[in-house]
């Protein structure tokens, strides 16, 4: 690749513009008692890119995502977001800053319909007070209509019109994953964190999901950070990849660089101890 990836912004081979750094993680260390989950890791995420975090099981990937989303508080290190150091925040405050995420184990409301689930993704956009909500007048009504419209656009985008009114509990796994993505997307995030969006899916569902991720990035300019085990998907989708192993960063770069990194190959294929 001839593009200078250290420049303030550059254009990728397929014509997308990658902007400056939005999320910068500096020397993050996270411990649970004596267990060191993340050890002194630094990397950044740039505006408009698809950034993958990969690594073997137990490498600390999900912990890393939880640090970004504000769920875990790292013992050492700093999280810089849009040029300023982020103080310790509650997850809802992080969400208000424009971060949304999906979970490795689906976390939807089973008894509610798909539409209602997606509407919960817009909680941050609702300001009407309890009384207004109860009598559904004034601001509440106006907001509901606006939010419903936004949700419908997401439903249309993710092609789940046919299950709009179906309770989530009745859906198959692949569709639940898509509904969860829809909920995250309904929050109109600037940075979207996806925790294993393609786990347990068949080839066709993976292809669909990949297309949605690329389209999201393309249409809405959403910056995406994702954890994924399927190497084919990661290498095709992402602009840059971070590789973790035992809480340490062992590689960082374009898919090609990572693929040829000896440490990464060792971590994935194993090293003989003779």
């Amino acid at each position, binding site marked *: 690749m001839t593009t200078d990836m250290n420049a303030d912004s550059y254009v990728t081979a397929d014509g997308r513009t990658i902007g400056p750094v939005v999320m910068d993680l500096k020397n993050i260390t996270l411990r649970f008692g004596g267990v060191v989950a993340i050890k002194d890791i630094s990397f950044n995420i740039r505006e408009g890119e698809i950034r993958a975090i990969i690594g073997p099981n137990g490498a600390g990937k999900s912990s890393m995502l939880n640090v970004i989303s504000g769920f875990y508080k790292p013992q050492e290190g700093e999280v810089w977001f849009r040029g300023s150091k982020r103080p310790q925040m509650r997850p809802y405050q992080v969400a208000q800053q424009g971060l949304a995420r999906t979970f490795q184990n689906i976390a939807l409301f089973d008894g509610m319909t798909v539409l209602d689930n997606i509407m919960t993704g817009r909680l941050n956009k609702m300001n009407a007070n309890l009384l207004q909500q109860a009598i559904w007048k004034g601001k509440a009504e106006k907001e509901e209509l606006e939010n419903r419209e936004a949700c419908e656009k997401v*439903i249309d985008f993710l092609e789940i*019109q046919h299950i*709009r009114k179906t309770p989530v509990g009745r859906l198959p796994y692949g569709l639940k994953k898509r509904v969860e993505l829809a909920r995250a997307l309904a929050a109109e995030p600037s940075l979207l964190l996806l925790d294993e969006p393609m786990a347990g899916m068949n080839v066709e569902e993976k292809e669909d999901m990949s297309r949605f991720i690329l389209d999201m990035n393309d*249409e809405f300019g959403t910056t995406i950070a994702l954890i994924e085990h399927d190497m084919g998907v990661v290498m095709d989708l992402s602009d840059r990849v971070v590789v973790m192993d035992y809480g340490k960063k062992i590689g960082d770069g374009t898919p090609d660089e990572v693929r040829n990194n000896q440490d990464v190959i060792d971590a994935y294929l194993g090293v003989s101890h003779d």
Partner: protein
Amino acid sequence: MAQDQVASGAFASIPALLARNVKEYGDRPAYREKEFGIWQSWTWAEAAEEIQNLALGLLALGINRGDHVAIIGRNRPAHYWAMVAAQKVGAVPVPLYQDAVVEEMEYVLEHCGARFVVCGDQEQVDKVIEVQDKIQHIEHVLYYDKRGLRKYDHSHLHWYVDIQEEGRVAHARLEDEMAVREAELTYDSTCVMLYTSGTTGRPKGVVLSNRNIVESAKNSSEFDNLGVNEDILAYLPMAWVGDFIFSLGQAMWCGFCVNCPESADTLMSDLREIGPTYYFAPPRVFETQLTNVMIRMEDSGDLKYAIFHHYMEFAKSGAGEKHGMPKRKVTTQKKTLEQKIRHGFNYAMGIGFAAETIIENGIRLAFAKLRHGKNVRKHFKAKDPLGLKLYRGSLQEYFKYRCGDVLVYGPLKDTLGFGRIRVGYTAGEAIGPEIFAFYRSMGINLKQLYGQTEATVFITVQPDGEVRNDTVGVPAPGVEVRIEDNGEIFYRSPGTFVEYYNNPESTADTKDPEGWVATGDAGFFDKNNGHLRIIDRAKDVGKMADGRMFAPKYVENKLKFYPDILEAVVFGNDRNMCTAFINIDLTAVGNWAERNNVAYGSYQELAGHPDVVSTIQEHVETVNKSVAEDEMLSGCQIHRFLILHKELDADDGEMTRTRKVRRKIVEEKYAPLIDALYGGKSEQYIETEVTYEDGRKGSINATLEIRDAAVVGNTQGMAAE
């Protein structure tokens, strides 16, 4: 009023009809589409403006008279507008099947020489781009759904809405040109070109003139009293002549509203929300819905189950035909106050009279009972549950049917989306008597018609009140039908096509100089009622080795009437006995398996399950019995059969896109199985190549069990074996 003027040729084209609709029904809804969860609608005036802008935009792109505009996409108002817009500027719309694979699409695009292509979305654009290297004449590609297309090279690719905007801007400059071209349209200029599905060989481009379309739409609308108040759901492939006639021809002629579903997956709920008054579906759709209803009734509680079956039995006994059919009243004008009062008065009087009669009879009965001794009283024993036998049988039947309407038929019709249906049609294949009876007994005026692309759909139609399951009706208005000595059906009508595009030989083969067209189907007129009855494709009706008649379709249809059987292919031409391939229906058989704790991992495994094979064997033997009843066709009883390990599929070339079996290809592909059927083996190994929806290929193999089925009567063929 307006409709009388057509004889003078005032509305000689679809754009002319559009102009009339704008004038007369300007603020009535013309198109609706569900988008973002809401039914968006366009009035005739708004639709006309959209069409005009697109037409001007196409002019700005340099469209010429006679250019072909290919349209590929699902049913959306925008795609219908593209067809009319093309006509407005003297071009010819060519709708294509959206689920066609690249090679099929390449052939058609190449053959029609399209300069412009209107695509629905990225999927279709990708296909067009793939063939664009080989086909040089495609100049401009328009797309409607923007998604995923932002990064594409836009030198020859345009967004539909941008082109409309361009047209709006160029309005003053190009309006005159458009008016000139529109005025040039005559009754004989080409309205549309549709490709046949091609049961045999390559698809052929059927050229239909404005006369074909407008006259057919006019005749058929008048036949069924279609008016401006109808609602239809446009969901059948746009490339199919039926959709063109219903959603464009008749909609333009009558000025009724065309509703487009949100996506293919939401079809059933959209159908229910719209509740069309005029509906068309191939038998397969009705069959699937009936299967679903039956499966869900199996799962229902005992009370519901009992009520459902009690009332369905009652309705099927003939009460449905008698009391259920919608009244043929077309109310285009609002009632006057006087009429309303009179109507209300009559209604109240009727109720009062009925109540009085019931009470009076009750009192009489009570007194009668008191007055007589016990031995006489037994003669009063009534048979109906209330203990009263007050009304004549027919009146009682009427009340019982209304009761069923409230409890069963009404809610069921509503669930299926058939609550408002006044006229429903099915065609393309024979429909099972059970299925047909089910829908009709609920009070859905489902009728059959017989037609083809070359005839602009209509050849014969069933008039209201003369509906039968085994015939296809009388010749449609304006159609002449003739039967040759060999049984082949010929017709001549105002809808008879102009020609096959760039294919004079085929045109000459099919259509003689006097305008008679060979249908390729064999049939005869029923002596009793003058209705046409179709036996089979003329070339498929053959002879068996001992000279008996072989009509595979006839037997296959009987087999397919079982919910367990999705498809059947019968062999026996020039052989001494008949054998069959059977495809099971995964929904119905899978449900059976679930109910009986039969575990299965795949379609193949279920199809090979011994219990399934035995059930199918029972079906085959019952069919044999019924086939044996008809002396002419008794040779067609099935002696041996097997259940195929995969569904016959259009992607594998085994069926046409309209899901008709391609007999030749099946015969070649499964030759070892046929040999085994006739060779007396009890099982056979086979390996088959399959094509997945994305075009990749794989292969599956299986060892299939072959069973003998009992036959009735003459088993001469077997003895010879």
